[in-house]
Structure formats: structure tokens, C-alpha cells
């Protein structure tokens, strides 16, 4: 039985008192004094069941009572299949540059334009697709974890619109940088924590993996066996929407370190099979990143870079997302959940049932005590 445990194991010691109770019952049971019992009477002794059913029922009831105190528990395994679901993370640049107007005559900023495009994309997705949102500027923030709830996603997107004046929009807009590597890593971490139980990484394992990503490109990546055996990535994709410069590390943090290298992240995504799409609106792509995105002869392609002009309208963005939709393949996922089940109440009910049965048996003509 998986996950068997006892809530109060010390209560099992009460079982040691059972023989004492049986002996006491034997001594205190009702007896009819009779002048003489002679050996021939042995032929009238009741059968084993009739003679001992009282003790048997007492033992069972006592054992059930003790076990209901001990409260044994086990974990029920629930297997859920998710068919044809895609896991998509949308990372949206919320730096100050995204507040620029989309055109000279437009009152919409580039960020709003991107948000409209993302909203359209969310509406286009199927109901069973998992979609998560990450917004970033100098730092990355998880707006919404992977979810089926499109209403939630729309509400989260409204929070970061320039006109909403929400706290998140203000905080993210204050940061001037374009920390794409941190946002991408946050998306990957969310993927790793959402894997099935047997392949799911712990927080420590994810943090350990991040240490490897801090180094210079080309270092040997230590990918946990859980991820390797999971073979994820058939339906996982990270879509990065930005207008800033995409480079391995943010300039402001080069001196201090502590940020993952985007080239290393791309290498990791290649290794685990997560697709990576960059939509750069009038931005620049660093040569190292561009090179990392290029497929080599023996490696599968990791994704694409879409570079568009600053005047990109909603139709163009939707066209890009349609292309992404075609590129992705479906993925079958199985989620195994272990739910703890305690047996106190069933055992208590069993105790009362046995007591009732005992009373019924005692009232039967052949089994009653005279």
C-alpha cells in the first residue's frame, strides 16, 4: 500500500491490554452455580463458534477501536491524463521602452499593442492549453502560473496595461532594463515545477540548476536525471515579446553576476526540448544569442526569432502567433496525485457495526446467554 502511515502509533500499545480484558471477562462472566458437573456433561459443550463468538466479537471490536485511535492512513493514487495540451509561457517586456507610442498618430503604446496581440493569442488557443504569463523589465515577475483559466489571464493582462496604473505596472515600468534571461529562466522553472510527480524538480534542484546557468557559455550543463527521463518539451514553448536588446546578460548586472546567461538557457532549452520564440519589435538581437538559436547539423531547432518593425499592428502579431501554433506539436501528460486517506471513520463505523451484529447474535435463540 503506497504511503502507509499511522497517525498515533503509540496507541497500538493498547492492544497489549486485550488479553487482560479477555481474562477479566472470563472471570467476571455470569455463571450458574450447580451442585456438580460430571464428565459426561462434556458431550453437551457448545461448538467452538457458540463457545467463543463472544470473545471473538469482543476482540474484533477492541481491535477496531484501537485502530481507529491509531488512525492508519494510506495515499490514494489518482492518475489524470491531459491529452493535447500545450504549455506556453508568454514573457512580456514591460520596460520603459514599451511605453512608447506605436505610431505618431496612435494613442496606444507598444506594450498595449503587444498585450492586444497576446490577448488575441490567448483567445485563439484551445481550452485545454496551459498558458502562463511572465512580465519583466529589470526583473521578472510571474503574473499567472500555467492555467486553463482564460478569464484569469485576461484579468492579469489588464493589470499591466499602461492605463491601469496598477502597482505591478508601476513597479515594472520603473525598471529600465530588459532582463530577458531572468524572465526565460522563470518560465523554465515554472515548467519544471509543473512536471508530473516522478519528474518534478524540487526547489533545491531548480536552484542548483540555476547555478550552472550563471557561468560562461559553453560550460557543461548538469541536467538532472529526472528532467532527462521526463523527455518533456514536445508541447512546451516560451514566447518572449520585447523591444529591447536581447543579449546574454544584462549590462547593468555583468559586474555583479548573479543572472543566468541567456545562451546557457537556450542551450538548456535545446537539451530538454523546450521551444523558444523571440518576437523582437524593433529591437536588437545579440550575435551570441542569434548564434545560439541557430540549429546545428546534429541538433534540432530550438525556435525562431521574429524581428518586426516598430509599426507592427495587431494583425502582424497574430500572424506570428499562428505560425507558432503551427510549429508546436501536442503533448500527452499524466499527472499522478497521491491523496492521503485516513481510515478512522471507516474503522469507527466498523466498530459500531460489529457491536450491532454482536447484539443481534446474542438475541438469537441458539446463541443467547441464559
Amino acid at each position: 500500500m503506497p504511503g502507509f502511515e499511522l497517525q498515533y502509533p503509540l496507541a497500538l500499545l493498547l492492544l497489549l491490554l486485550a488479553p487482560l480484558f479477555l481474562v477479566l471477562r472470563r472471570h467476571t462472566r455470569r455463571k450458574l452455580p450447580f451442585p456438580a458437573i460430571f464428565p459426561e456433561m462434556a458431550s453437551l459443550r457448545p461448538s467452538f463458534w457458540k463457545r467463543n463468538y463472544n470473545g471473538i466479537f469482543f476482540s474484533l471490536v477492541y481491535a477496531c477501536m484501537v485502530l481507529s485511535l491509531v488512525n492508519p492512513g494510506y495515499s490514494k493514487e489518482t492518475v489524470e491524463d491531459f491529452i493535447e495540451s500545450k504549455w506556453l509561457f508568454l514573457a512580456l517586456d514591460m520596460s520603459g521602452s514599451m511605453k512608447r507610442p506605436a505610431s505618431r498618430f496612435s494613442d496606444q503604446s507598444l506594450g498595449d499593442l503587444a498585450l492586444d496581440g497576446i490577448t488575441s493569442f490567448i483567445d485563439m488557443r484551445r481550452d485545454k492549453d496551459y498558458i502562463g504569463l511572465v512580465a519583466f523589465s529589470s526583473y521578472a515577475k510571474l503574473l499567472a502560473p500555467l492555467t486553463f483559466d482564460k478569464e484569469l489571464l485576461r484579468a492579469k493582462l489588464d493589470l499591466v496595461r499602461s492605463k491601469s496604473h496598477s502597482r505591478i505596472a508601476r513597479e515594472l515600468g520603473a525598471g529600465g532594463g530588459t532582463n530577458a534571461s531572468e524572465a526565460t529562466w522563470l518560465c523554465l522553472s515554472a515548467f519544471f515545477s509543473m512536471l508530473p510527480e516522478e519528474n518534478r524538480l524540487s526547489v533545491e534542484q531548480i536552484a542548483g540548476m540555476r547555478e550552472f546557468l550563471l557561468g560562461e557559455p559553453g560550460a557543461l550543463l548538469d541536467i538532472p536525471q529526472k528532467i532527462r527521463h521526463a523527455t518533456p518539451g514536445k508541447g512546451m514553448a516560451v514566447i518572449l515579446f520585447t523591444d529591447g536588446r536581447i543579449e546574454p546578460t544584462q549590462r547593468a548586472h555583468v559586474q555583479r553576476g548573479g543572472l543566468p546567461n541567456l545562451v546557457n538557457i537556450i542551450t538548456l532549452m535545446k537539451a530538454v526540448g523546450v521551444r523558444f520564440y523571440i518576437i523582437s519589435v524593433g529591437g536588437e538581437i545579440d550575435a551570441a544569442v542569434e548564434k545560439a538559436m541557430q540549429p546545428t547539423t546534429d541538433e534540432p531547432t530550438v525556435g525562431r526569432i521574429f524581428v518586426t518593425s516598430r509599426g507592427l499592428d495587431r494583425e502582424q502579431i497574430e500572424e506570428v502567433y499562428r505560425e507558432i501554433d503551427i510549429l508546436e506539436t501536442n503533448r500527452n501528460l499524466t499527472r499522478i496525485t497521491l491523496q492521503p486517506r485516513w481510515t478512522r471513520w471507516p474503522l469507527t463505523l466498523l466498530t459500531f457495526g460489529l457491536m450491532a451484529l454482536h447484539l443481534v447474535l446474542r438475541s438469537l435463540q441458539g446463541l443467547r446467554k441464559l
Partner: protein
Amino acid sequence: MKPPYRFDVLPKHPPRNDMAGDWAGLDKGTGYEFWGLRKYLPGDSWSRIDWKACARSGELHVREFLKDSAYNLMLLCDISRSMHFGNKFGLAKDLTVSLAHAALRSNNPCGLLLFADKVLTWIPPSAAPRQFHHIVSALQQAPSTKNRKTQLAPPLKLVMKRLSSCFGVIISDFHTDLSSLKSLMDAADQRFPAHEMVALHVLEDSEYHLTGVKDGLLTLQDMESGQQMALDLSGLQEFNTLLRLKRERTARALAGVGVDSAVLPTSATDIQARVNTLLARRLAARV
């Protein structure tokens, strides 16, 4: 205390007591019961000469008589634990008092022995006027014995040792091993045993015949040994059969050592008739 029953105590064999009484004794003496004739010997009283026999035979013959005697009634009453089941001891007391009264009324010495696993009270036979009072008092103050078992050997040994002859009545439920009685009794082998014994087998109704009980499980505890046994009373008929066989076995064991017995259930209304019948039949069966 007024005796509840009127018994006619009739010993089967002639008593051997030296004390004069209403019974013709075993030995010849100065009684009223004619024994026979014998030739006159010098020293015989002339008043005992049978003149008719002299006329027929031409020789002097004297008449001989049996000695007048009285029987020693020895009442052996069981007061073990099992006798306190139901009203058995009450009946035993009534029987003892009635028998003592019957014996003392006709000036026969009467004694009492209370026993369980040993002799607890011993009142030697006497025909004194206060003997009845002694017997009644002893019964009323019968020691509440903690001794459980019934043992017949100690009282019988005491009686054999202390009394040269007696007519003993054992009042008990006989829940004991009777196989050792043979070595204790002298009645079976002798034509006129010195110690003549009669058994009154006192039983409670449920020991005699269990009725009014339906199916069910019953745990019995032996009052003497403390042994417990669970019984399935769906076989009630079999249980009653076992009780009957036990009674018959006891009666056979007693008869085997020359002790006649009568079963007296506590609820019987004809106790007096049963006891008198037993005594009368014994006398009738005398050879």
C-alpha cells in the same frame, strides 16, 4: 421444633444394642419375642419351663426368648457446599429432625453426624430427653463450612470406629466418588451387618429434571470444585438423560455395598410416603 414428617423407622436387621427397647434383638435374652425350645438345664428358671412341650416329649423343655433391644439411629447429614443449592439443606434438616423425633419417640438412641469433606459435628447416640434438642440445635447452628467437597469416607470410618452397631441414615446429594464405599461398608458381605445404612438422596428440582429452559448457552460452575463448563441447552433432553443416568449410577453404586436408597426431590409432595415405603420394603425384603 415440630417435625414436619412422621416416619416409621424400621431397621431391616435386628438391633444389637444392649439397651432394652421395642425391638427383638439379635441375641437371646429376657425379651418377649419367642425364639425356641431347649432341654432343661440345671439352673434354669422353672417359670420358663414349657409344660406342653414336656407333656408331648416326656422331657423338661424351657422356652427361650430374644433379648429386647433398641436400635441406634445414626443420622449422617451432608452439609457440603452442594447441599446449599436450592432448598436441599432445608429438606435435609426436615428429614433429620423427623427421623430423630421418630426414633427418640420410641426410646431409641439417636445421634447426629454433620460432615462435608470431614466430620464437622459429632453427637453420639443417646435416648436422653434433651437429645432431640441437641440435634435440632446442632442442625440450626450447622457450621458454614468453607470446605467444598463431599467425602463419605471420614464419617463412615468414624461411625464404624465409635459405634459397635447402628442403623445409619445418610442424607446427602452424593456428589462424590462412591467407588471407595466397598472397603468401608460391611453390610454387603454379612447376613446381619452391625452397621446398617440407608441413603436418602436429596436433589434439587433442576438436578432431578431441568424444565422451563429454552435454547441458549449456559455456563455452570461446580459449587464444590469450582470447575466451569459451558453447556448448549439446545440438547435439554440429553441433559435430563444425563441427570437420570447419574442418579441411576449412584443408586447402583449404593446398592452394590448394601445401602438402599431413595431419591427425594425437594419439590416432591410425598416425601413422607417415599421414606416410609423405602423402610417398609427393606423390612419386607428381609430374609
